[in-house]
């Protein structure tokens, strides 16, 4: 019954989405408020049914109803409860259902909290939102229905892929989807603006919080995924330039650019056309990411050709939405009036430069990800574009961007002064030079570029601190005045500083981890010791243990640093009986400050030893603290009064606040 109800709820959600995608548009044409308001009620009802459908699938997984094919293929009655729930989106059908549920959630949020939007704009936005939703409901119902029954229900399920049986699955995909799908809102707003042929600063003020929210989730989602790969795959890598990762990085880069260009539009009413284009591109890249991951085209171009239903359907969605929106853009963009003027050297100019570098970096990732696919389709030659390509293209562009980052907030709107900004950044520059000298003198080995990169990171962090100090008048004014000004500083200023500093912190982590990472790989027996970066690891023994749905071989290591005993580390190797002997490697981590010791196991040898991999990763945690700090900055910015209070009535309420900047 539950499966059928879930299926039925999904069909009803589709029907509502179809109404929502047509009736409000008609209402806007006829200037009929009643018809336009249909969008609101259908969006809320659609959310209700999509959520009901999702809850139905979760219930089926939790109760281990193996008569449903999706549950049978991805669950097992012995699996711990948390993995029964997360297993819902650990497979294609369930994850697509999560995708549309989140889409419905965002539509519902716009409907519920968009009461201050102009009626026609809201009707258009929700209608566009419903176009996307209808396409994906159809996709699920026609090619990937999670509620299909099996005629002769088996007693036991086939279990979830062991690699996915981890808490990472509970957090990473939902976060990532909240990010991906969140960009659908800015997309819908952009399309609505093109349909209406009207766009102003107030539009940017409505769009920015939604973009910011999506960006925060995507940032956290990517960081979480990276940390998950780091501890789960057993060899300490945290970014692989894998197409699946690039698929999430591209919308992030475009979304970051969008955040900055929307700022120019909100404050200066300029870059309108570009902001609209970026909104379209960002969501298009999210759709492309979904296509790359879901269609099987990455596994093999031929896999795509042998089972084309899903792939072709998503490709069709991709063509219709990307092609359609770009055509609409080409047709209507002229109608949007050009905004304020600014000199090339100004805050606007700096933000344009930021956009330029971010989109170009995004383009290089795009080429590196799709070029092998295109080449294989056209010539049949198989190549792999690996990390060296990305390091050589993405790296230099990001370096150029990061050199420019501290200057942006220092420049005035309309007409800036590079010399003045450089003078104010003098302290940050000196700190960077000191850092370079210090790192160069105190470390051995590694690339000559490493100290320079650390210097760059310090410069970015220093720039963020300088910006705060300048605005609060710290060091220039009496402390009490500075404290008072600190309290009065808009939260978005703090947000900017945090996000920019996060970039520098992540860079420090990345440079230290890749440059001064030490590793030990060898076979160890009971009583053997390994020495790495001052740590001594003594193997105490190997034991077998029985888990809920696996057996594991646990090695125990006593760790000491300079003779002082630290805690024991117990990496293990799990063998999943339910999935034909699949095994996973559970690494053990020992955190000291922000550095980590990492131990994982290889296979056991015939002589009673076991292959062991030990890494010492200095400052590795900064790689993920950086993005977390960026997301925190985003949250601070999101909580700024300007975005909450200023949005409905932009004209007067805002001027008073802007003076503070």
């Amino acid at each position, binding site marked *: 019954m539950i499966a059928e109800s879930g299926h039925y709820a999904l069909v009803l959600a589709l029907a509502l989405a179809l109404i929502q995608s047509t009736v409000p548009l008609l209402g806007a044409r006829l200037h009929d408020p009643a018809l336009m308001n249909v969008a609101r009620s259908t969006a809320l009802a659609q959310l209700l049914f999509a959520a009901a459908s999702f809850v139905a699938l979760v219930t089926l997984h939790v109760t281990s109803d193996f008569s449903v094919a999706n549950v049978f293929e*991805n669950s097992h009655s012995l699996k711990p409860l948390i993995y029964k729930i997360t297993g819902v989106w650990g*497979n*294609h059908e369930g994850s697509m259902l999560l995708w549309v549920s989140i889409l419905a959630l965002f539509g519902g949020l716009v409907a519920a909290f968009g009461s201050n939007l102009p009626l026609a704009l809201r009707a258009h936005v929700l209608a566009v939102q419903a176009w996307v939703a209808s396409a994906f409901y159809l996709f699920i119902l026609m090619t990937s229905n999670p509620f299909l029954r099996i005629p002769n229900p088996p007693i036991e399920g086939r279990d979830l*892929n062991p*690699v*996915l049986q981890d808490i990472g*699955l509970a957090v990473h*995909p939902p976060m990532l989807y909240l990010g991906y799908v969140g960009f659908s809102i800015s997309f819908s707003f952009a399309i609505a603006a093109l349909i209406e042929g009207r766009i102003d600063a107030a539009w940017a003020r409505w769009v920015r919080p939604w973009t910011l929210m999506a960006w925060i989730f995507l940032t956290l989602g990517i960081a979480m*995924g990276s940390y*998950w*790969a780091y501890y789960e*795959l057993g*060899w300490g*890598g945290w970014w*692989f330039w*894998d197409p*699946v990762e690039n698929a999430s990085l591209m919308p992030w880069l475009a979304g970051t650019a969008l955040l900055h260009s929307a700022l120019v539009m909100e404050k200066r009413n300029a870059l309108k056309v570009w902001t609209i284009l970026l909104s379209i591109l960002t969501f298009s890249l999210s759709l492309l990411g979904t296509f790359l*991951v879901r*269609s*099987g085209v*990455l*596994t*093999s171009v*031929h*896999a795509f*050709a042998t*089972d084309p239903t899903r792939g072709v359907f998503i490709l069709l969605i991709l063509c219709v939405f990307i092609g359609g929106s770009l055509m609409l853009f080409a047709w209507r963009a002229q109608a949007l009036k050009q905004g304020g*003027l600014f*000199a*090339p050297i100004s805050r606007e100019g700096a933000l*344009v*430069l930021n956009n330029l*570098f971010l989109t*170009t970096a995004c383009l*290089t990732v795009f*080429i*590196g990800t799709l070029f092998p696919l295109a080449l294989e389709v056209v010539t049949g030659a198989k*190549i*792999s*574009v*690996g990390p*060296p*390509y*990305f390091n*050589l*293209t993405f790296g*230099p*562009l990001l370096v150029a961007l990061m050199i420019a980052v501290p200057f942006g907030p220092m420049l005035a709107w309309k007409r800036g002064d590079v010399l003045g900004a450089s003078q104010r950044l003098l302290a940050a520059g000196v700190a960077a030079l000191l850092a370079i000298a210090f790192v160069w003198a105190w470390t051995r080995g590694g690339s000559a570029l490493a100290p320079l990169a650390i210097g760059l990171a310090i410069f970015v962090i220093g720039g963020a601190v300088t910006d705060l100090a300048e605005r609060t008048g710290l060091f220039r004014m009496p402390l009490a005045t500075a404290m008072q000004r600190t309290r009065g500083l808009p939260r978005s200023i703090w947000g900017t500083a945090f996000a920019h500093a996060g970039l520098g912190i992540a860079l420090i982590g990345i440079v230290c981890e890749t440059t001064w990472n030490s590793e030990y*790989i*060898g*076979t160890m027996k009971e009583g053997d010791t390994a020495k790495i970066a001052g740590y001594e690891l003594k193997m105490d023994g190997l034991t077998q243990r029985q888990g809920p749905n696996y057996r594991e071989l646990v090695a125990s290591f006593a760790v000491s640093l300079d003779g002082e005993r630290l805690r024991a580390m117990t990496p293990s190797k799990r063998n999943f009986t339910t*999935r034909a002997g*699949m*095994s*996973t490697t559970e690494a053990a981590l020992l955190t000291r400050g922000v550095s980590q010791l990492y131990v994982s196991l*290889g*296979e056991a*040898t015939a002589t009673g030893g076991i*292959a062991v*991999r030990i890494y010492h990763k200095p400052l590795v945690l900064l790689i993920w603290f950086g993005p977390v700090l960026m997301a925190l900055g985003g949250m601070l910015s999101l909580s700024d009064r300007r975005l909450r209070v200023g949005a409905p009535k932009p004209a007067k309420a805002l001027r008073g606040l802007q003076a503070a900047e």
Partner: protein
Amino acid sequence: MTRKQRRLTIIGCSLGVLALAAGLVLNALRDSIVFFSTPSMVAEQQVAAGRRFRLGGLVQPGSLKRGDNLAVTFEVADTNAKLPVVYQGILPDLFREGQGVVAEGALDASGVFKADTVLAKHDETYMPKEVADALKKQGHWKDDYGGKEAGKPDGGEVVSQGGAAAAEGVTR
């Protein structure tokens, strides 16, 4: 500054950055792409020693030998040829004799493939995609491997990896 001048400045900057990016991309594509070969392709094409490529095929049953210090040797075979491979390090969880494998590295002077990275696929069928495609081309193909791929857990290609250097494939 007029609107026209401003626009020209911006367009000039954009073209500059795009030209830079194009230069970087072309340079990187020339130096860092890696081609894929099967043992028979290697035999036919006389690949030069020292040139990096990816070797894919099945691990020849009975060929796996372990030496000291995690050194391993095995043979990668397709239907027409086989090639000896040496590797030092921990093999991925799902490395098995008779199953598919992809190794990255280069031939040495004596015609032995020195691998620095070994990938094996985490899937019930244990078949890296290049190997599957290559075998298909040679007409040795049995099951509906391709069809199953689309519905894989979480869509991502799940690859287990041995070797410490550059990598490929991650669970998403």
